[in-house]
């Protein structure tokens, strides 16, 4: 299983103190994604030049000559790179890192169990995040089973783009579903994420009506993309229709930009909403009787 690793003391992905497990590979490709290294299913290399000490050990081990020095600085030709990771093994300063590591369910469990007492004390647990967990059915089932056997509650963080039966099956064993709704307008959704949102909304509707697990809707708030009244109004209508009590607003942040640069990609130019707009959006939900987290 390729995983982006485990983040302990994760306190922004569900209730309490949690550990987030990040899987690699997502059917969506959101332009603002803050985990761009976890979108593609295959291994990738992240290069952070500020950490490079120019020891050039990597250039000596690269079998495909993807690494070279130009003007005293290291360059990575991604077209030539086969992600064999030999350079990463040689890079002691962690300037070159693998976007994901190959780990088993047992190994992941070993990393999240030491914090069990913290989960218990705060009503926390493990959050399966990504990437998109629905793209990894076998892994999802296995980790859910393993957590259940250790009495560790699990939250699912999903974009909803996947097989409904799988979603339903997983949800039944979860503490809470963190369900992302990024854009209500289908055309805009397609433009910004590369996918239509009909499947996402249909799955959400079915899941909510099934009542098999609590659902918390999460929506990113990005200036000029979805911080308009139209998106908010449409989402309020959906939440009321499905009788979902709460929404979590995730204002855009620039954490992902450094990772885009490390992937050799152009850095997307988005901005968080201004304070007043965010407050107005929150007030809109509150006025409609929806709790804002």
């Amino acid at each position, binding site marked *: 299983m390729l995983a982006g690793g485990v*983040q302990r*003391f994760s306190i922004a992905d569900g209730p*309490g103190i949690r550990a987030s497990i990040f899987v690699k590979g997502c059917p969506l490709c959101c332009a603002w994604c803050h985990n761009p290294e976890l979108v593609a299913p295959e291994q990738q290399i992240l290069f952070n030049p500020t950490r490079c000490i120019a*020891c050039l*050990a990597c250039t000596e081990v690269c079998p495909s000559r993807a690494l070279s020095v130009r003007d005293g600085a290291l360059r990575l030709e991604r077209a030539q790179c086969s992600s064999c990771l030999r350079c990463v093994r040689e890079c*002691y300063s962690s300037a070159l890192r693998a976007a994901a590591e190959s780990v088993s369910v047992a190994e992941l469990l070993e990393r999240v169990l*030491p*914090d069990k007492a*913290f989960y218990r004390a*705060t009503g926390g647990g493990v959050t399966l995040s990504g990437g998109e967990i629905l793209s990894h059915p076998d892994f999802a089932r296995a980790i859910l089973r393993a957590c259940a056997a250790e009495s560790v509650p699990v939250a699912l963080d999903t974009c909803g783009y996947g097989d409904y039966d799988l979603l339903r099956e997983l949800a039944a064993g979860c503490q809470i579903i963190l369900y992302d709704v990024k854009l209500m307008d289908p055309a805009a959704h397609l433009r910004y994420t590369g996918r239509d949102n009909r499947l996402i909304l249909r799955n959400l509707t079915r899941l909510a009506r099934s009542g098999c697990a609590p659902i918390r809707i999460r929506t990113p708030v990005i200036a000029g993309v979805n911080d308009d009244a139209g998106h908010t109004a449409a989402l309020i209508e959906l939440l009321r229709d499905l009788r979902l009590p709460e929404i979590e607003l995730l204002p855009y942040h620039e954490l992902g930009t450094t990772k885009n640069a490390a992937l050799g990609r152009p850095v997307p130019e988005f901005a968080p909403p201004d304070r007043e707009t965010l407050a107005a959006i929150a007030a809109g939900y509150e006025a409609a009787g929806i709790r804002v987290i």
Partner: protein
Amino acid sequence: MRDRVVFLKKRMLDAKPSLSAERVLLAREAYTRYAGEAAPLFRAHVFAHVLEHMTVLILPDELIVGNQSKRQRCVSFHPEYMSARRIHENLTEFVRRDTDPFVLPDDERRLLDEHLPWWYGRSTEDRMETILPEDVQQARRQALITIGSRTMPSSHTMPNHRRLLAEGLNGYIARCEAHIAATVGGSREAQEKINFWQAAIIACRGAIAFAARLAALAEAQAGTEPDERRRRELRRIAENCRRTPAEPPRDFYEALQFVWFIHLMPHIETNSAGNGLGRFDQYMFPFYGRDLAAGRLTREDALELLQCFYIKTSELLPVRTTEDAVKFAGYPMWQILMVGGVDIDGADAGNELSYLCLEAQEEAQLAQPAIGMRVHPHTPEALFRLGLRMIQKGLANPAFFNDKVSIPICLAKGGTVAEARDWAVVGCIEPHPGGGVSDASPTAGYVNGLKCLELALHNGVDPRTGMAAGPATGDPRSFTGREDLIRAVETQLRHCWDLVVKGYNRVVPHHMLEWPVIFSSLIMEDCIDKGRSIQEGGARHSYTGTFFCGPASVTDSILGVDCAVFREKIVTMDRLLAALDNNFAGEERLRQFLLNRAPKFGNDNPEADRVCRDLMVRSSEYVQSFDDARGGRYCLSNLSQTLNVLYGEYCGATPDGRRSGEALSDNASPVNGRDLLGPTATVNSVASLDQVNTYDGTLFNLRFDSCGVRGDRGLDLIGAVVKTYFDNYGQHIQINVVDDATLRAAQREPEHYRGLVVRVAGYLAYFTDLDRKVQDNIIERTAHLKST
């Protein structure tokens, strides 16, 4: 907060710490007058003479009175402890230095120039320079160890407040008189006891005379005071000072004044720091409860009085040599006031005063006293959350202490079940059997753990000087695995503990025979019954503190060698040693390997945690097998204060990737910036140290960035971290919630951040009082939940 408290606090903070010559003159008079008396009597006379003649102050609007020295926040020298020659040579530096500077008025300076030379050669410090063996002295010079009680008495006291409040000092005098009457003289032993009892009577009478002088002053001030309300207050102050500390107090206000007198006396008697206020909410509650029930006192009045009391504790200052001021930066006095915990029957002991003690600090936000909240499984959630709320606000007060670890420690230290349940901190974080039975933890010495690692890597030679500094533990090039290195480090450590014990054992008898501290002794249990000072083992239990600096740095270094040389074999021992000796010049790749590839303590890595635990447990077992000359059990503390910064300057580059001169790990915490998995992992690592073995406690600093712990949810998070740490047998945790931006701003514009309080080690300090280097070190402490 009432206007009076706002005013008193501002006046206290505005008062620049200053020096006075008064005590130097008064003590000289006493030395001349009482020369030739037996030591206990002589010491008591000096104490009483100072009390009878020093300036007494009652400042406008004060309710609790009694001053340490001539002005507010002013300190006098004790040239019988600190070398007068050294004080004299340092006077200019005291004024100019960055860390803990003092103001010295010209007239005081002239008096000191005149009188200090008379004191040359008369201090404990002068004596210690002549009696410490050469190998101990050399180890001190090599920054390998320190030896304590050289420039101050061997005392950290925590009196039996309950008994004092019940009997008054007149009751103590009566007991001494009864002992004298019942003792038939005629033997050396009997006469020594009689001397002690007579000395105790002199000391008590000195304290009573001091209070009487304050009473007279209050009456005089009342005579000329135009304001009717203040006139009434002054008359009440006069009444309080006539009654206490001679007689038992009758109400909460008198009791506070009484406790203040008892707390102040050791600070006039000697230059000691680390005198604890003990379980304040326990021994004060009866007075509070009675007054409240009788309608004599309101909660608000009690809060104001408590805050006045806190401001008095904030006035107490130590004067330290510049070297010591760097080790213990921020004028710390370690006046720990305990709240909460279990009672002697094991039930929750919290009461309304526990809350009030916290609320008083929540409002007043002073660096003293540092509040220690004892936590046990049945601590009321409301009390715990009040403490958390203060932490969340960034007050860095209270620190949390775990009954579940501290009580077993006190049992292991020889306390009875009741004494162990009544435990309190004496010193910084050291748990001791309570009820005034423990003469606790005078500092025997600190050991520079990382220097021991350096010696192990250089076959006992200090690479900084090229001189032999430890036993020859073998050429590291012949080591075949981690265990060889660990054995060598432990041999070096044991050698250091031996030197500390050897040095301190020489120190103790001199305090015993020539510098017994009488008032500080008589307030401790069993000293009067035995007729002996604490320096002679008069207290029921005696302990001696030793301190291990930098265990995480040592651990990471061992693992660095193991990983690079023995396991991954990326470098030979020879080349690693050369890289260290050259401070990694041209070896940055190796340094990056050591930094990023070797396991590090503080990341919940069982292997790293085990290495650190073994170091601590084995050191504890070794040190704690010794007793000093007064019968004091040596106890180990996982604690460095701010000595980790100074000791780092003496250590070359180390195999944890640390460059030459950089600080050691802070107290029991991981090395700054090397705990990368968040606070839960850090907490798990520190909790795994099997802390119950380390009898003088394990000091754990954790810092949260303020934006990560807002609101009720933030409170839950901090609370869960504390509770889980305690469930996993952590002994102590103190949390700073403050963001880097605030600390940096305070560095730039100190005048705007005078009130910013941080926990430096086991104490609180005003951040702007700290030396720049220490400030930087605090900022570097890994801030968890930093916003991104």
